[in-house]
């Protein structure tokens, strides 16, 4: 390699050029298949096949998914989710589902799905998917998982409805690995026959001193003798004991969070000892009290995509949904404002961004938003 003309002015220049010549003679090629290396833990896409469909309750099924290639699935941390990519009635969309199986099992992922009245994806899955069907998803992602750096060994999990799925994975891991960690699950359901995983949870709790499970029923019938109501401060304190800094996980329907945080506040539990799973946008645009008062949330506006067309959509349809409805595809994963995958630039017009959106400071300053949590207030133009 010819050195720069300035190099020869330096003392020791010959040592350096000799060293370079030596390395040129003895060097080896560098690994450059970076995308393949990344795919081991973070595949761009998982091709899955439905191995089994297990009915859990009248409204809930578990889909047991294997890799179509027969290989092991990527490792994940209990509590993480995958995002299913689907095409339903001609619309391409995606939904996040926590893996409910144990991370020690890499031959399959279980997704446990409850029917959401009117929901397009959950109904599609429950009503049409049968063993042998193919599905496509992202790799495992999400930040709602145990972190040994600060979670400690004494944990509480407050779950509502299908929010028990990540707890199930965490509990199964504690049992399978024999971890020195206690977990107390306080699990709220509407009715006793709505409780997902009831038999397995109760069996684990009987056999495993690390795991405690309490069911709380909000609409009990005459047969129910256990605790009732919501997971109020009093109920949690009575069942789980004083929280005293124990890491407390909360997962359930979006509407549960504001209530649950108030209860934890009331118990004097510091916010840094609470982990919330992102789970959709709690308040639809228009019902949020920050929504501009004089703006009709149901009226239509025009959304233009820079250089690629435009369409009309109601203001209270999240931009991501509206874009998908109209045939535009963009990356999305959590659909809860958290992961930033669905980030778009608002070139013109104004949008309302829900509080769930975890925007970067600079995104706010430079006109970017998370389209899954943003609603068009005026006619807008976006770019992505």
């Amino acid at each position, binding site marked *: 390699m010819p050195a720069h003309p300035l190099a020869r002015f330096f003392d020791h220049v010959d040592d350096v050029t000799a060293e370079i010549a030596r390395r040129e003679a003895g060097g080896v090629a560098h*690994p450059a298949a970076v995308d393949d290396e990344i795919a081991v*833990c973070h595949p761009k896409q998982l091709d899955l096949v439905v191995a089994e469909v297990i009915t859990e309750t009248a409204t809930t099924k578990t889909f047991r998914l294997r890799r179509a290639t027969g290989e092991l699935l990527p490792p994940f941390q209990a509590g993480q989710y995958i995002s299913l990519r689907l095409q339903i009635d001609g619309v391409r969309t995606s939904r996040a589902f926590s893996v409910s199986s144990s991370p020690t099992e890499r031959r399959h992922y279980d997704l446990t799905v409850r029917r959401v009245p009117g929901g397009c994806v959950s109904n599609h899955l429950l009503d049409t998917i049968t063993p042998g069907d193919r599905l496509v998803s992202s790799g495992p992602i999400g930040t709602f998982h145990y972190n040994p*750096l600060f979670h400690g060994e004494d944990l509480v999990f407050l779950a509502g409805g299908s929010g028990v799925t990540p707890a199930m994975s965490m509990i199964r891991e504690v049992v399978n690995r024999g971890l020195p960690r206690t977990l107390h699950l306080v699990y709220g359901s509407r009715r006793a026959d709505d409780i997902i995983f009831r038999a397995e949870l109760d069996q684990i709790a009987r056999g495993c001193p690390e795991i405690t499970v309490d069911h709380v029923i909000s609409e009990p019938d005459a047969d129910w003798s256990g605790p009732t109501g919501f997971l109020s401060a009093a109920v949690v304190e009575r069942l789980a004991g004083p929280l005293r800094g124990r890491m407390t996980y909360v997962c359930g329907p979006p509407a549960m969070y504001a209530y649950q945080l108030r209860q934890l506040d009331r118990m004097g539990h510091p916010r840094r000892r609470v982990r919330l799973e992102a789970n959709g946008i709690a308040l639809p645009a228009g019902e949020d009290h920050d929504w501009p008062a004089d703006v009709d949330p149901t009226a239509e506006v025009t959304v233009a995509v820079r250089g690629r067309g435009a369409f009309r959509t109601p203001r209270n349809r999240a931009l991501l949904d509206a874009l998908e409805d109209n045939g535009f595809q963009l990356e999305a994963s959590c659909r809860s404002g958290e992961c930033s995958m669905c980030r778009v630039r608002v070139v013109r017009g104004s949008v309302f961004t829900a509080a769930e959106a975890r925007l970067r400071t600079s995104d706010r300053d430079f006109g970017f938003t998370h389209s899954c949590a943003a609603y068009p207030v005026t006619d807008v133009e976006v770019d992505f």
Partner: protein
Amino acid sequence: MSDDYDAIVIGAGNAGLSSAATLQRGGRRTLLLERHNIPGGAATSFVRGRFEFEVSLHQLGGMGNGPLRQVLDQLDVTRRLKFLEERDLYRTVVPGVLDITLPADWQGVADAIEDSFPGNRARVESFLELCQEVGSWQLVARASLHQPQEQAAWLRGLPRVRRNGLRPAKEVLDEYFDDDRIKHVLASYWSYNGQPPSTLPFMDLARILTLYLEYKPYHLRGGSQAMSSAMLDSFLEAGGDVRFDSNVAEIRTRQGTVVGVRLDNGDEYDARMVVSNASAVTTYTRMLDPTVVPDSVLRDLRSRKLGISGTITYLGLDATARELGFTAGTNMITSELAENTVRDSMHSLDPTPYVVASCYDVDPIGFAPPRASHVAIFSVQYGRVWDTLAPEDYARAKYAYAQSQLDLVEVISPGLRDVIEEAEVATPHTLRRYLGHPGGAIYGFDQDITDSWLFRDADLKPNVPGLFLLSAWTTAGGYNPTIVTAARFSQRLLQL
């Protein structure tokens, strides 16, 4: 899809953004393609709970009236940002051995060292004088490659630069000082280059010290992501096009000359000039038809080593910087003075003996909520060592390593663990995933003396007609070098 552009830039890292903005503002229709969904490469941030986290920027060098400031002015970027000058260079701690804070000022450094290690003032002052001479020379010379005559004449008159430039920093420090503690303190910036003192070129230590002492270290409101977004803004305002989630799989050539690119989804774009911000290894060995890559390039690649990566633990803490005991933004903590311990640790997953702990709330950049703070703990590591793990052991290994980083930081911040509200650990695998670079290298190739631009200027020449490489792989790693070199080089491309 076909579109006519004058230039296509692959990658929106520092160098890619700086190049794209320069080309577009210079009247070239430019398309910027980035595989991630956000600009910046390493110059980015992410959000967890109430906190935003700075991914890479410890200290911005070259602001003040330095080279970076000039480039950001030219690109119309400065006015879009708020820069925060830091008071201190760094605090260096070896538990039980030394604990000293150097202010960001030539004279202040000499005073602080004299306070802690009396009787060394004269040596420190003459060492710093040498650093300033060599550092200033390097900053100017690197930018003036196209004026060899003037440069040669100037260098002839700088005997101390010629004598010391190529020596290892350790050798020069040994010549000036007897006390190992002083050498340790003055070489603290070794990690910003990635070579411990015995292989760190003195020229580079001098350049880094000059960059921060002459032009001061800075933080940025909104973090490095704000600067990336501001560069993108300037590019877009000038009429540039950007596409995110666009992974370039191939640089297309016809009869050996660049004609455009192809994405991994099959989309094609045409342009006669392509600038790659992707790694030199990927660009030459994965993106191009092997028959168009000259042998000399492959020989050059083989003679290089993949540079350092690192493991970083990002913490959101429910306490103020003062409550935590952070008095300086940048804290270099090493368990002992011996260099070998640190050097070995760069190839090992054993508990780390070395961290840089940056607290972004001594001069708050606005990422932590009130009464809380944001700290990033960085340890230099080669990516290879993480490849030895089975995938299912990865998570456990990264938390174990992070625990050892926390142990060291607790030396200056006892009780830090009790107030953790958010914690994320990024390893060389994480950096590889987000930057696309082999080994997760963050400064390009290993920056020992053989990597110097004095010996490796070939990368900035078009080895394949129409293709130019601009990144930490072709210039020194870091913000100032990548942004400044890319802008200056792209200025010259405008003359073509």
